[in-house]
């Protein structure tokens, strides 16, 4: 799961960054080349955020957000704004905290013992980590798709309308309508319309993941959070999911964590690059992939990192 890759001590990354330091022994102030060893040692780092981001209307505002697992600081003062109606990708090496950041948005990390946070996030201007926030109400405004598909042990139909069921919706017409709309949105309707009342566990892996997307969009979330949704899927299923993400915007705002550089390049509008719990560079995907401001980012996206 997401937290597991962050829970690893950063020593692996630190050793890779040390080689980098030797290859570039005298970092000068004029060059904007970051000293990753210094980052690992805890020096503050200012993220490079492209000016295009500021021009977008934002749905999710992350404001100097930091997170500790016990004594380990997994996220360092991250500030970024996620634009509305666009797909924003979080990329970075394993253990850089992107899944943790994603799971902090709907406060799933609350379920883990020993987690402590500083700073705040705002969803459409409403505080997420404020003192008297109702976490359950908050989660209802977001949808989430996990790395490994996790359909519930019930029928396809019940899976899709789960969020409505827990809100106490009983009206059959409303439920039927939401079920069809969500399954159509997840490009699954034609495949399953004749077996809506069969167990969801009988579907293929790709279908299960699309079912989870249908479930996540059923309650009309303001933000859709996706945690490496294609990592367990074959290329064809991956392509379907990517097409599906395309069709979801601009109706939904999507924040996606991915390990797959091509996927980020192909399907996202904005990309944020994270290392060691810090946001390094954040801008339009085209700029990040073709003309990044930082050489680190370029190293990473071209595969020279690590």
């Amino acid at each position, binding site marked *: *799961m997401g937290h597991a890759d962050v829970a690893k001590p950063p020593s692996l990354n630190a050793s890779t960054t040390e080689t980098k330091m030797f290859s570039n022994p005298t970092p000068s102030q004029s060059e904007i080349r970051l000293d990753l060893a210094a980052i690992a040692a805890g020096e503050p780092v200012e993220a490079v955020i492209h000016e295009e981001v500021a021009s977008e209307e934002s749905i999710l505002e992350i404001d100097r957000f930091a997170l500790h697992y016990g004594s380990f600081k997994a996220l360092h003062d991250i500030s970024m704004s996620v634009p509305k109606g666009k797909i924003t990708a979080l990329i970075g090496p394993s253990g850089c905290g992107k899944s943790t950041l994603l799971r902090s948005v709907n406060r*799933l990390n609350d379920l883990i013992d020993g987690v402590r946070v500083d700073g705040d996030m705002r969803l459409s201007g409403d505080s997420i980590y404020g003192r008297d926030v109702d976490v359950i109400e908050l989660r209802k405004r977001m*949808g989430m798709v*996990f790395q490994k598909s*996790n359909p519930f*042990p019930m029928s396809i139909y019940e899976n899709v309308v789960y969020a409505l069921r*827990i809100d106490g919706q009983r009206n059959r017409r409303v439920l039927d309508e939401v079920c069809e709309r969500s399954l159509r949105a997840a490009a699954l309707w034609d495949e399953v319309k004749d077996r809506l009342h069969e167990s969801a566990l009988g579907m293929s892996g790709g279908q299960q993941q699309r079912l989870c997307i249908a*479930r996540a969009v059923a309650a009309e979330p303001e933000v859709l*959070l996706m945690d490496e949704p294609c990592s367990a899927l074959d290329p064809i299923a991956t392509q379907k999911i990517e097409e599906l993400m395309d069709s979801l915007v601009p109706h939904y705002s999507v924040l996606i964590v991915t390990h797959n550089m091509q996927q980020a390049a192909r399907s996202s509008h904005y990309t944020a690059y994270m290392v060691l719990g810090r946001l390094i560079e954040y801008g339009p995907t085209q700029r990040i992939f073709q003309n990044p401001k930082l050489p680190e980012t370029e190293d990473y996206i071209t595969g020279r990192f690590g």
Partner: protein
Amino acid sequence: MVEPRPRTARAAHGGGTLLSAGEPVVWLMAAGLGLALAMIAGLLAMILWNGGATFWPRALVEVSTSDGRVHLGEVSRHERYRPTPEIYARLDPEVRDRAEHDAAAHEGTLGRTLLRTANYDLTGTHFTWIDDFEIEEGGRSEPEWGVTIERLEWGRFYGTPTRAVEQGRTVAEGTEDTWAWFEEVHPRLRSLWRQKRSLETHDVGRVNHELESARLELREAELREGVPPEWIGAWGELQRARQGGSAEEIADAEARVDRIENAGFVPTQAFREAVAEFESREAAGRERFAEIVGEVESLSQRMDGFEVVMRTADGTEAPLEVADIVRAIPQNRLGIVGRLGVYLSRWIEFLVDDPREANSEGGVFPAIFGTVAMTLIMTIAVVPFGVLAALYLREYAKAGPMISAVRIAVNNLAGVPSIVFGVFGLGFFCYVVGASIDELLFEAKLPNPTYGKGGLLWASLTLALLTLPVVIVATEEALAAVPRSMREGSYACGASKWQTIRRIVLPRAMPGIMTGAILAMARGAGEVAPLMLVGAVKLAPELAVDATAPYVHPDRSFMHLGFHIYDLGFQSQNSEAAKPMVFTTTLLLIILIMLLNVIAVWLRTRLRRRFAGSQF
């Protein structure tokens, strides 16, 4: 880059020894499993063989012995024993020859046969040992007209029908005529007998219940009004005098009641009405009772006086009331089909009838009912309770030394001897909870306890406590096995903790919980020791569910197959006859528990199918 090690270097230390391949361990495991299977199969085979054969009508054998006696009966078993030398000295020369011959052929042992000769009312014994050497040459035969008679009292009777008597008049003579007459009148007389029994049990029971409830209502009124005991005593005497006393006694009793009323206690109008109500109900009850007695008498007149005279093997003639004969079987005349019919009819009687003859004959229906009812109530009580406890332990309680201690305590509870639970059930449920219920709700019945003694409910709850650890442990394991991703998926949809538990965790854990319930059921159904303290009794023909209000009586004592086995095996006066019944009852108990388990497993499979699917 490390140079790959040459392949041969590895093969040289050889993975080829027997031990490293693990073969001996596999054999050991297979042997362990085989032994376990063999033991189970052996147990089942023995119970099936002994229990299944009980009701099969075997041949009736007539044996003439050297002392001039003739025995008729069923062979129970044959064995060889080592005789003391004095035995030979006492024998006649001819018989001694036979005995010595027998001993020489069998390494000095003598054979003897246990014959079930029955006719307890005539001989004072149910079984007779007959030495092989005592039997005369050709002294063993299977008489065509050896008839087994199963009757209401005195156990079985073996003999030959000789004469039929109606009201003291002989109506048929000779074996075949008598048998024909018997077959004609027996069904009619049995149906009369059944009518009589129904009157004696159901109708009389209903009247008794009515009288009892009238008395209870009066007692409640007395308690409500605070009537002094002297008045109640004097008034009771007046009632008794009115039932059957002289005019003088009635006047005396009336005077005493008046005296008490004048001395200070004046019954209110409401109480007088309650008394009048009681008197009229009691009178009605007595009238109905007299009616029933009349009906029973007229039935008896139509039934009595029909006798079949049987001649035993040694020539004694015994008249037997036809109405008291449950079943007469001319078993040497029956072919395989006829015997199968007898076999089945005995099984049916065993399954649906009440016991008779100190439980060694008749059926065990009350015990079947008691076992099933107790097991079901226990399961219904233990599963929700155990699941709730496990849910709290696993989902809500904060892990720490306290929770670990609780878990250890729960696990240890499973190791407490079951009789300890029986003592607890008696001390807590019967004497504390039951006594409090009696004081609150059944005050009028005191000092007779209603819930303040052993009963079906308390036995079920005691066993529920006994099986609680099984359910808690199984449920905790099932809850822990629900994947974290499912819970997170539910939380991400905005479900609360309880909604997640109810809609995702519990359904997903249900098969595991059912496994716990099945284990608990199997353990509870087979438990006997604690039941002896909290309500299982030798004989309780009144079931916990019947037609008298309030229809369900969880306070009643009950019969249990396990306790029935113990009772048959160790408390029966006729232990030789009870022995096969022990096996039959054991067979029945095993079948019953198996059926309950099969139903539960079937339910679990249905649940599982709902969650089955591809899990890559």
